[in-house]
């Protein structure tokens, strides 16, 4: 599985959205399922999936799928 697929899967699992909904425009607080509770589930999922530790700035900045890719790139996840 590519890291992009891994990332998409993490979104599907954590937010409970359909795979086709996971695209760059998918945004925090705009999709009904991506609320603050789901956000923390997503963070935990990304941390265990990619074995990284995100800091509080990352959590606040991760406001869309596109942003998530940017932030994970800092942690050398190649997408």
């Amino acid at each position: 599985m590519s890291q992009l697929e891994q990332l998409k899967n993490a979104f599907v699992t954590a937010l409970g959205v359909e795979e086709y909904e996971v695209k760059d425009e998918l945004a925090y607080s705009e999709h009904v399922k991506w609320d603050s509770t789901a956000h923390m589930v997503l963070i935990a999922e990304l941390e265990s999936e990619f074995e990284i530790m995100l800091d509080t700035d990352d959590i606040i900045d991760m406001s869309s799928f596109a942003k998530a890719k940017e932030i994970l790139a800092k942690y050398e996840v190649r997408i």
Partner: protein
Amino acid sequence: MFEYSSELFNLPVYGLAKAEKQAMLDRVLVQLSHHHYQHCNQYKNLTDCSHFDFSDKKAQDLLPLAARLFKDFSLSSIESDAEFRQMRSSGTSGQASKIILDAESAKRQSKVLVKILQAWLGKQRRPMLLIDSASTVKTAGGMSARAAGLQGLSFFGRNHCYALNDDMQLDLDKVSEFFNQFSQQPILIFGFTFIVWQQFIQALAKKGLKFNLDNAILIHGGGWKKMQQEAVDDELFKQTIRAQLGNVSVHDYYGMVEQTGTIYMQCEHGYLHTPVWSDILIRNSDDLSVASFGEIGLIQVNSVLASSYPGHCILTEDLGQIIGEDDCQCGRLGKYFKVHGRVPKAQVRGCSDTFA
């Protein structure tokens, strides 16, 4: 929509001296008053009936809304289809406040809360023990103040563990496991003051259980009303926690659902501190004039964050006292103050009096 300057949220949380901070607040709070005057009918009516003129006004001259108005009315400066979330107070006594947010306001609140807390906790997240039940945040229909607090603070945690079960009783197995796993790490503990005291600290004491944490920080808030009934003050609270849990640095905070995102954290010298985006004034309870430092009166909270509802200047029903400005021994700039509980019911003036 209200436009904020992009630099506003990059200001240092406790690093702007009085002259600059007050000039910023004068500017933004007057702009917000104009904004709400144009977008919220009730706010316009209240302003008009008091024959209030915004021109040449400073922050401290603006008319505060009585906190109780948010219980009686749904005050909003946004179109109903832009509504993203309603926050409501826990409503321990009577009706709950309703605060209406659009998506931008909700995001801005989280961002500012994170900036304030980063000044105390750093950017790294810590293993986190929440002194509450996981079901508190799952209650549907609006968001309670307690749920908002738990969720807001969760951003600073990892390996979240709820210390209480669904009946709000201590889950000793979970807590012991959490402490055993993380006792040598910097742990974050968060909860509401009375719940921490009664359901956690007292419950541990009754079982005769002590822990020896190496480096923990406890953040708690929600008021001292019930604590005073049990004759527990800040000092006794801190002592008991350290006796029970080990090396814990304990910080109270003051904040309210009407201005979520802003919290006033207690420093190591025991004072609550205003972050750069908000300010407090003390008003004499008899004539609502602005009181001098040291005098006890009603607390008014001003915040630049309230753009979707007219809550930028709110007169609370809490009593407090400003100790000083920019000169706390802890080194943080801004006003620092103490809260002395709530005004007795009979003394609370109606909202119309605020506008007299």
